């Protein structure tokens, strides 16, 4: 366990770090973050004893760090500094073997079974044993970095101090090294303190983060407590946004460039729609921000092409994803740039309407043969039938995340109202239907023009979405009835 109490220190008379305190329990990983010159590396140097602390004390396993002899300390604490060029070099094996120095006696050092074991394990963990006999100077920066990590691991110390351990490493090796360190922390109770340049990596791998600013602790806590947009923006002086990691409950930070990149966006009109025999296509000039429940590329993302594809009522594939992909590539669509929905209806049945001078464009295909009252659906366990309502709401404006979700609610409510007005009933219960069992919705916005923080029923955009979806859905249902 490492305990740092009110330490100050640095080079010369003026301290670079001031009054820093924190504790790292056994088996935990602490990440130190901060802008250039905030004192991250200096803090690490003071902890490792390279620079003296002018005030405060550092306790390693409840004993002050400067009461250990150099050799005793090396058994308890391994340090990996930033990589430096060396005038002479040894083989990887020799370099890693040096990690055993503190465990050997001074005069006639003998190489024990334990030493050999530790060196082999460290080389295996870092994946450098394949270069075992190569000379360091002929290895890449990443290979050298991993060799020095192996050297530190061979020390078999309980505390590991790292200064940007993933410097020079590609992402596969970043993962390999950090996963390995994480595993050591979990399984062998290795305590780790590491300076990170990359906030996202730090968030992913650290239990706690310490944010430094001008030599002082700005924040200390769990990643979600430290990586706050305003805090990061304040300390680094850069615009950032945080978002959730797709798999782990850890925040991620992304940069928001200051320079406006207007050429990445473009307004949309009715002209962007085409209807062919097989599908309704919307092709924008620039990507739109989209949230959808489509069959292909659902979720939130940026897409230029939307397809509402007509399929046979019997459409079924074991590997649907593959079939959808081959459909898109066969027709020259870019799969990563396209959202696709499926319907049994002919493309000609689509209703496409523009509202408020093109502020909102709504496109609907409605097949209601499979209409369902969602409030009664629990009564029966049934496979979905053919017949679906696909709704696209395309907005010329800049929506907030909140507005996107509100737009989905508003559009859904309007659809349900249209079904009621058209007196569409659940065939089984005889009650008014709320939709079909396979309805799909897409909300897209150009993200230029007016800012629209909300899209509820009382906002301008909400009103047009409500009216647009209601009218277009009603028309589509009427068309369906006529066809039927």
């Amino acid at each position, binding site marked *: 366990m490492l305990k740092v109490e009110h330490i100050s220190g640095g080079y010369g008379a003026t301290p670079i770090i001031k009054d820093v305190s924190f504790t790292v329990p056994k088996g935990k990983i602490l990440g130190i973050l901060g802008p250039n010159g905030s004192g991250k590396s200096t803090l690490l140097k003071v902890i490792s004893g390279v620079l003296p602390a002018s005030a405060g004390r550092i306790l390693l396993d409840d004993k002050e760090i400067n009461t250990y002899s*150099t050799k005793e300390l090396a*058994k308890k604490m*391994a340090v990996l*500094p930033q990589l430096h060029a*060396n005038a002479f070099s*040894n083989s990887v094996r020799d370099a890693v073997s*040096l990690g055993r120095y503190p465990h050997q006696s001074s*005069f006639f050092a003998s190489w024990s079974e334990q030493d050999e074991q530790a060196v082999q394990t460290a080389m295996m963990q870092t994946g450098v044993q394949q270069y075992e006999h190569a000379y360091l100077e002929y290895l890449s920066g990443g290979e050298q970095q991993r060799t020095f990590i192996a*050297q530190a691991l061979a020390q078999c110390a309980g505390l590991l101090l790292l200064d940007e351990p993933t410097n020079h490493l590609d992402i596969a090796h970043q993962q390999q090294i950090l996963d390995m360190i994480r595993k050591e922390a979990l399984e062998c109770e290795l305590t780790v303190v590491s300076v990170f340049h990359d906030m996202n990596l730090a968030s992913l791998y650290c239990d706690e983060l310490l944010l430094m600013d001008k030599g002082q602790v700005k924040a200390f806590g769990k990643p979600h407590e430290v990586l706050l947009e305003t805090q990061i923006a304040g300390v680094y002086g850069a615009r950032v946004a945080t978002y959730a990691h797709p798999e782990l409950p850890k925040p991620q930070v992304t940069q928001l460039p200051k320079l406006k990149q207007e050429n990445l966006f473009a307004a949309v009109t009715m002209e962007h729609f085409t209807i062919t025999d097989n599908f309704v296509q919307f092709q924008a000039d620039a990507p739109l921000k989209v949230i959808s429940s489509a069959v292909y590329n659902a979720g939130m993302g940026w897409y230029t092409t939307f397809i509402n594809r007509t399929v046979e009522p019997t459409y079924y594939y074991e590997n649907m994803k593959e079939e959808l992909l081959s459909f898109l590539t066969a027709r020259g669509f870019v799969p990563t740039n396209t959202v696709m929905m499926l319907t049994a209806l002919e493309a000609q049945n689509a209703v496409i309407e523009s509202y408020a001078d093109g502020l909102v464009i709504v496109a609907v295909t409605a097949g209601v043969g499979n209409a369902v009252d969602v409030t009664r659906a629990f009564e029966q366990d049934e496979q979905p039938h053919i017949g679906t309502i696909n709704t696209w709401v395309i907005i010329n404006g800049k929506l907030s995340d909140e507005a996107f979700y509100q737009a989905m609610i508003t559009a859904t409510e309007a659809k349900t109202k249209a079904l009621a007005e058209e007196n569409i009933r659940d065939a089984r219960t005889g009650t008014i239907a709320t939709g079909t069992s396979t309805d799909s919705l897409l909300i897209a916005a150009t993200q230029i023009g007016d800012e629209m923080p909300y899209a509820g029923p009382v906002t301008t955009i909400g009103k047009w979405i409500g009216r647009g979806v209601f009218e277009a859905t009603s028309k589509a249902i009427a068309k369906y009835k006529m066809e039927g």
Partner: protein
Amino acid sequence: MSQNKKGVIAYVISLALLLISIWLGIAVGSVNIPLSTLWDKETDPTAYSILWNIRMPRVMLAALIGASLAIAGAAFQGLLKNPLADPYTLGISSGASVGAVATIYFSISLPLLGTFTLPVFSMLGAAITMIIVMTFARLVDRTMKMETLILTGVIFSSFLGSCISLMIALTGEQLRLIMGWLLGSVSMRGWPYVQMIIPFVIVGVLLIWLNRRELNAMIYGEERAKHLGVDVKRSKYIILAGGSMLTGAAVAVSGTIGFVGLVVPHMVRMIIGADHRLLLMLSFINGASLLVICDLVSRTIIAPTELPIGVITAFIGAPIFAYIFYKQRRKGGA
């Protein structure tokens, strides 16, 4: 395993080279002496006398000096992390030279020491310089970083060098003597000189050799070495003391013989790598061989005139060094 095998092979070859060098050194000369004379006193008493009283001490002295300079060079290069460092980098040799040149210049001869006044004064010069350089470096920078040491060495070397130049400029009849001493020689010294430096060689080599693993750690930098558990400060002092002792003793008895301390460690490093567990002693053995051969060349190449050995080492050493430098850079792909 393979590392050990490599070490054994390197030791065997180096020792064989040393034995051959010594054999050539004692056998070849104005009078060629058969090897049997070593133990056979009766057949040719003159040859026996030349061998034991002239050739043997001369070869032994050359071997000891070459060995001392080479191991000191290897240690200083590793310690200072500088491939261009040599035993003379820290100015200790300049101190020894000032002591020696001053002895000649002022014609000092202390009654008790007699002809040994010069080596004793020279050693004193080396010792005083070592203390001043280290004290000054410590004053500049408490942690005595390697860069500080090198710069301090450069300052003192150039200052002491100008003192020597001054004495050379002002001297008249002693010029030849001074120049002869400065260029280095192992001739006409005899057994007393060998006996004089042996204790320094033993202690110096031991001090350095005990820090072979610490030197391995220190080539990655002082900070890294400290983190690996090396008591950097202590090791630094011990290595500096050992290296200075070897350098001072070598310069005091033979003058400033260049290039052995620079080139031999590089050659050894090229062949077996920078592992000081092998590098130090292999430099020691091969340094001995090189200087014995250089001495042989210096006294036979334009016999009966004898060239100063310092001329030969640089003459042979500079091209070898140029070749190694070229090869190493080419190998690095630069």
